[in-house]
């Protein structure tokens, strides 16, 4: 088998992966880059992001303010040096994307327009109607095509990182079309594989978000940081989990319980203004509070019996009718379209049923401010990584910008590492893969007459996650979850695979993805169980207060033979000492 060798090997062709690839190609055209992705890059999940990307651009805004919002929004768990670097580089990256052709919405004078977003005190979210992620991803993908040093391996599923001599030097993957196992060597490797929302039953995340990169790093001995912090978005559609963008509230939409009351006022999120008041919606207040707090408010409303019930679960109402047809069509057309299609509600006339759904993972592969992990030669960026700029709760529209800022940083870091470490042990890598390839081959040719179906284990896993590590957690439920996960780890060895074909075997892919999901779920559950406080998106009924004395720290989960080992790491504090999170005042 001939093994191609690249300077920088990138796993993932979403926003982060493509930004990294372009960064390397632009900085030094002699370096060869590979982008390996399990789907065509433009199918990556970044495509679904709607609302926008944050970056300070207008005169009334400042870096200080963006830092403030981000750090407070993250309940002081974000690394402040990283946040400062992020905020500083954000506008540059967004302008770079503008130069590459991203169709940002504009003001009459031709400058870019910004919109309000939850948890941000000042309007700073750049947007391309309500399809921002789609436009960013297609712009990046189309731009990346012009760089000859970039080779794409589309529809290649990476199932293993190859580590030799204490350095990550490549990956093993399956070419889906042929079923061949391939080794691709890289002087440095960047993981840009996105999040893992699919470990929960109700999620806005696409089918491909199965936490693969987290699993890959975890198995290679790299820690997963702050995994207990899982963001629920307050407005998903019941049933499918499809997202109704925060822009609906940014434009003035309101949340009502079953009695028609704007219940957020009862949960310390400020007092409501009339929708006809020109000051509505108020930034950082009521409906424009942060996502964790809004989702938590739903939980308490449900406890109090104030929500609607249905076969697809409980829900409340998101009302935008007062905006009128014209504004709805102009500013949030995709919302109208989506609600009409998937729940049969025309939001011009009726409120939309919504419920909190899992949306984003703040945690991920532990990296430093330059996207480097603890394993030499391995970098990570995007949602699969945790730098951390999001702390205990991400603010909407910080993530798309994060892909760019840290995608680029990862690219530059990895390129420099490749220059300093030119040698690759190709033969040793090939030898490593032998066993695994043999195992996969036998799966193709013989299948496996196991007991457990992929769908049934997946269902057990996701429903256990919802019950045990949902919006509110406590020790008893977390212990039960950890126990279920131990059982699943035993059962998964006996997974049934009926597809014997080598060509585009999606069942095999599902099986491998399920194994990654179990890794990610385990890190979430055990980290949550160990964090005995409430902070941001991690809320415990048995430890209701934030405990800075014991837990102003990042958790880091390491794989071990039995349960994972949880370590802690200090948070970097520069200018913003921990304070109380205040909204609506």
């Amino acid at each position, binding site marked *: 088998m001939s093994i191609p060798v690249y300077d920088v090997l990138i796993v993932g062709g979403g926003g982060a992966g493509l930004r990294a690839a372009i960064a390397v190609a632009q900085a030094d055209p002699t370096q060869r880059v590979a982008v390996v992705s399990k*789907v*065509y890059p*433009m*199918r*990556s*999940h970044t*495509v*679904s992001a709607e609302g926008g990307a944050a970056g300070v651009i207008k005169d009334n805004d400042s870096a200080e303010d963006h830092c403030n919002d981000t750090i407070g929004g993250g309940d002081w768990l974000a690394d402040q040096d990283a946040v400062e670097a992020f905020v500083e580089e954000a506008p*540059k990256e967004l*302008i*770079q994307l*503008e*130069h*590459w*052709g991203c*169709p*940002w*919405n*504009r*003001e*009459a*004078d*031709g*400058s870019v327009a910004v919109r309000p977003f939850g948890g941000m005190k000042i309007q700073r979210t750049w947007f391309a109607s309500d*399809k921002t992620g*789609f*436009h960013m991803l*297609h712009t990046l993908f*189309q*731009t990346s*095509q*012009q760089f000859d040093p970039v080779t794409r391996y*589309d529809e290649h599923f990476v199932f293993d990182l190859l580590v030799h001599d204490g350095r990550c030097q490549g990956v093993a993957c399956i070419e889906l*079309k042929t079923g061949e196992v391939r080794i691709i060597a890289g002087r440095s490797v960047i993981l840009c594989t996105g999040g893992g929302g699919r470990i929960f039953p109700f999620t806005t995340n*696409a*089918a*491909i978000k199965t936490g693969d990169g987290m699993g890959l790093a975890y198995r290679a001995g790299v820690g997963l940081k702050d995994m207990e912090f899982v963001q629920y978005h307050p407005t998903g559609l019941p*049933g*499918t989990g*499809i*997202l109704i963008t925060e822009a609906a509230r940014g434009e003035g939409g309101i949340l009502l319980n079953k009695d028609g009351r704007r219940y957020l006022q009862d949960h310390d999120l400020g007092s409501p203004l009339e929708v006809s008041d020109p000051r509505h919606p108020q930034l950082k207040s009521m409906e424009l509070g942060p996502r964790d707090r809004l989702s938590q408010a739903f939980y308490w409303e449900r406890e109090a019996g104030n929500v609607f019930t249905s076969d697809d679960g409980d829900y409340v109402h998101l009302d935008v009718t007062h905006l009128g047809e014209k504004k709805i069509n102009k500013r949030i057309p995709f919302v109208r379209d*989506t609600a009409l*299609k*998937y*729940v*049969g509600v025309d939001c011009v006339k009726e409120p939309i049923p919504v419920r909190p759904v899992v949306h984003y993972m703040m945690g991920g592969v532990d990296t430093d401010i330059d996207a480097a992990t603890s394993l030499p030669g391995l970098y990570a960026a995007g949602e699969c990584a945790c730098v951390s700029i999001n702390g205990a709760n991400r603010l909407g529209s910080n993530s798309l910008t994060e892909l760019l800022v840290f995608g680029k940083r990862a690219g530059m870091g990895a390129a420099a590492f490749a220059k300093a470490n030119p040698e690759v042990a190709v033969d040793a890598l090939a030898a490593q893969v032998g066993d695994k390839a043999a195992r996969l081959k036998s799966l193709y040719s013989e299948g496996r007459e196991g007991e457990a*179906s*992929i*769908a049934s284990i997946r269902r057990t896993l996701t429903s256990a996650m919802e019950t045990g590590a949902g919006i509110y957690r406590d020790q008893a439920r977390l212990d039960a979850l950890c126990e279920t996960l131990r059982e699943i780890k035993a059962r998964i060895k006996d997974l*049934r695979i*009926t*597809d*014997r*074909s*080598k*060509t*585009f*075997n*999606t*069942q095999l892919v599902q099986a491998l993805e399920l194994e990654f999901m179990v890794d990610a779920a385990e890190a979430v559950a055990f980290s949550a169980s160990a964090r005995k406080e409430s902070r941001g998106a991690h809320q415990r009924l048995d430890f209701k207060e934030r405990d800075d004395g014991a837990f102003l720290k990042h958790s880091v989960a390491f794989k071990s033979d039995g349960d994972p080992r949880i370590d802690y790491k200090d948070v970097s504090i520069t200018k913003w000492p921990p304070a109380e999170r205040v909204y609506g005042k």
Partner: protein
Amino acid sequence: MASSATKIEGKTVTLEIFRYQPDDETEPRYDTFEVPYREDWVVLDAINWIKDEVDGSLSYRWSCRMGVCGSCGMMVNGEPKLTCAVFLRDYYPKPMRIEPLEHFPVTRDLVINMDDFMGKMEKLQTWIVPKEPRTIEEGEYRQTPRQLADYKQYTMCINCMLCYSACPVYGLDSSFLGPAALTLGRRYSLDSRDGAKDERAELIQSDEGVWSCTFVGECSRVCPKNVDPAGAIQAGKVEGTVDMMKSMLMPWGRK
């Protein structure tokens, strides 16, 4: 052949699905499945149900299930559709026939081979070649909402390939660049920031380009995102003609 072993309660609907497994078959076949009928299910939900509950070997692409990633295009009763955006209720109680997108080679079951399109995009230089290069420090290019409107509609393409399946010209001769690729090329040529219009025009105005189009118009009808590729192509023809006239009448006017 295959029918579901699982007993289904309540209403059901029949899906007849194109199967092709190149590892052990040289010809395709059709399998019939009974699936539960649910008012709020899209066709993709039914296909996922089959994969989870009846036949795990059924292969197809999907991801976002919200009509934006462009993965899940298939022929539903002979029409190219995004299966995550059409509902069982649109067809019920008639049986449905699900096939891979027409005019593309079939890799397996409902999975088509779209390498051809990926190559065409690159040929058309679907990226900005700056007219007046600018540094980051100089800030953004100014582009008025009106200038944005010139090309915005053409940026909405999700590369789902439905238009290629609706295009007989492409079906008969796949060297035709086709609706989506030509539209994306035009998208960049219309952008106020771009300066490679003339280079792209060579290909757009060539035999593989707009002049192969006989204006059947079906591409625009099936497009799930209202991109109107047929419009982009016709406008491309008009522009090509005007440019040709100009260069004939005023040879000094163009380089």
